[in-house]
């Protein structure tokens, strides 16, 4: 069946001290992209960090990837197992140039499918800005670099945490194209979004997170056709088109 890239999350709980942030998450991500949507502060980023092993509190339950238990493993081992994170807010390294970002990660783990050259082909604008510090890039360019950096691990699963945040609509369209292209080429995608347009353009399955729990699972059609659902789970005014 698979290349060992199935992500299975079972009974995942996470705590910051006494605060119970994730309350028994159960879901899986296979070959089709999955999106997780929900309002601010519902635990979406905590979930990404818990999967990646960089959660600062404590976590219980099970996160299996290709049959391998990840919970409790060091982040670098999780990355080398084939999961890469494009974090919320990009989190680029302020003292590194674009080229250095790609050099730090190149030839680490993965199977070497992705090289800095291939990243530059995918994002020509990064090639032009190789010598610039990451802090000098525009928001869109920063997002390209954050994605490029993650791809150098040649991940089987790419987790994107609010990639459209703070980007101009035209750049968001471009980004959606990039993510769909990756998914089409066999990279599994777990997308965390507040932007329904982006979520539905990338994924068909949507898990709605409310206060640390997965409240329901919806298809794109259900989500787009029901303004009441959108208001209840996301607190947004319905999309009009």
């Amino acid at each position: 069946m698979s290349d060992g890239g199935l992500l299975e999350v079972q009974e995942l709980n996470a705590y910051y001290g006494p605060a119970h942030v994730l309350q028994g998450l159960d879901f899986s991500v296979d070959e089709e992209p999955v999106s997780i949507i929900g309002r601010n502060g519902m635990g979406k980023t905590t979930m990404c960090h818990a999967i990646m092993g960089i959660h600062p509190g404590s976590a219980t339950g099970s996160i299996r990837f290709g049959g391998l238990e990840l919970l409790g493993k060091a982040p670098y081992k999780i990355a080398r197992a084939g999961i890469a994170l494009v974090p919320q807010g990009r989190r680029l390294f302020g003292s590194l140039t674009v080229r250095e970002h790609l050099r730090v990660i190149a030839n680490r783990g993965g199977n070497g499918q992705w090289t800095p050259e291939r990243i530059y082909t995918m994002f020509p604008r990064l090639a032009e800005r190789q010598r610039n510090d990451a802090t000098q890039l525009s928001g869109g360019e920063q997002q390209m670099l954050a994605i490029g950096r993650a791809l150098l691990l040649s991940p089987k699963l790419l987790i994107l945490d609010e990639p459209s945040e703070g980007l101009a609509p035209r750049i968001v369209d471009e980004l959606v194209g990039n993510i769909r292209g990756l998914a089409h080429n066999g990279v599994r995608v777990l997308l965390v979004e507040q932007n329904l347009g982006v979520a539905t353009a990338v994924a068909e399955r949507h898990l709605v997170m409310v206060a640390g729990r997965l409240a329901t699972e919806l298809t794109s059609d259900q989500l787009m056709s029901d303004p009441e659902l959108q208001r209840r789970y996301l607190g947004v005014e319905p999309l009009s088109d």
Partner: protein
Amino acid sequence: MTLGIRQLPRTALIALGLLVVVWLAIKASQGGNTFLQVTLNGTTDAALYFIVAAGFTLIFGLMRVVNMAHGSLYLFGGYIAYVAQTHWYAGGTSQFQLGATSSTSIWGFLVPLVFATLVIGLVGLGIQQLLLRWNQGQDLRQALITIAVSVIIADQLIAHYGGIVESIQQPTSWPNSIVIGTFRYGFFRLVVVLGAALAVGVLLYLLIQHTRLGMIIRAGVDDRPMLSALGVNVQLVFAGAFFLGAMLAGFGGVLGGTMISVGPGLDSQFLLNSLIVVIIGGMGSLPGAAIGALLLGLVQSYSAIYLHFGATDLTPYGVLAQFILVIAVLAFRPLGLFGRPA
């Protein structure tokens, strides 16, 4: 323009700084050779401070560990080299013979230097792996643990080597001093220690700016969890950085033990020096350590000599000058000259 009350201390500090500069200019014009001598003393002390503090700031920048045992590693390094030199290359370097029969070959200096540097690197690595690693992120615990280590090392050094001040011999074939016109200055201080500091500075700069390991270190300073999430084994990098930082303390200890001496009390003195250097320069910054060391060395050197005002001799209070320096820098740059928020 009104002078706000909060502006007042800063204005006073600027005035004080100007006064110091004018005062030094007067001194420089009065006695050329003495001034040159005092300036070179400050500069060469600074070179030694830089070597030691570079290791301190490297460890802090990457791991946020304030290694309070850094001064002990410095002194321990000096003792190891001293013992290695007297035992392995016993040319009769007893202090009672005062060079009558003693001679030290180049190897008799270099082998103890390299040996002590490596051993101290391993000692530092041991401290990090055995004591600090499982207390990561707990600043207070790490500070207390390293203070405990420094107390233990200091007592053990006194127990084994006693309270007598010793010094490591430079190779006999090296000149004692160099002479330029009417001016004479110590060869080891001016050429070896200053040269070593420049070499350490350039090599560390190249390492940090131009190698992949350096990029990993910079990325780790910026965002450690993210670097780890990108497949880099940060623990391995930490171990390497601690080894390197401790080696610099040991290396400085051998140079200092040759240039000045090895003896009780130098450990806390060099810990204090390192702390002042990185507080002035900015914790974790290499250029900051260089500037901080130079400022500290010069201020110490000038204040020890030039605090005479007519009949009043203030040189016994010269040690206070370095703290005034710290206050002055922090008043304008609370994070140090090159400091960045964590």
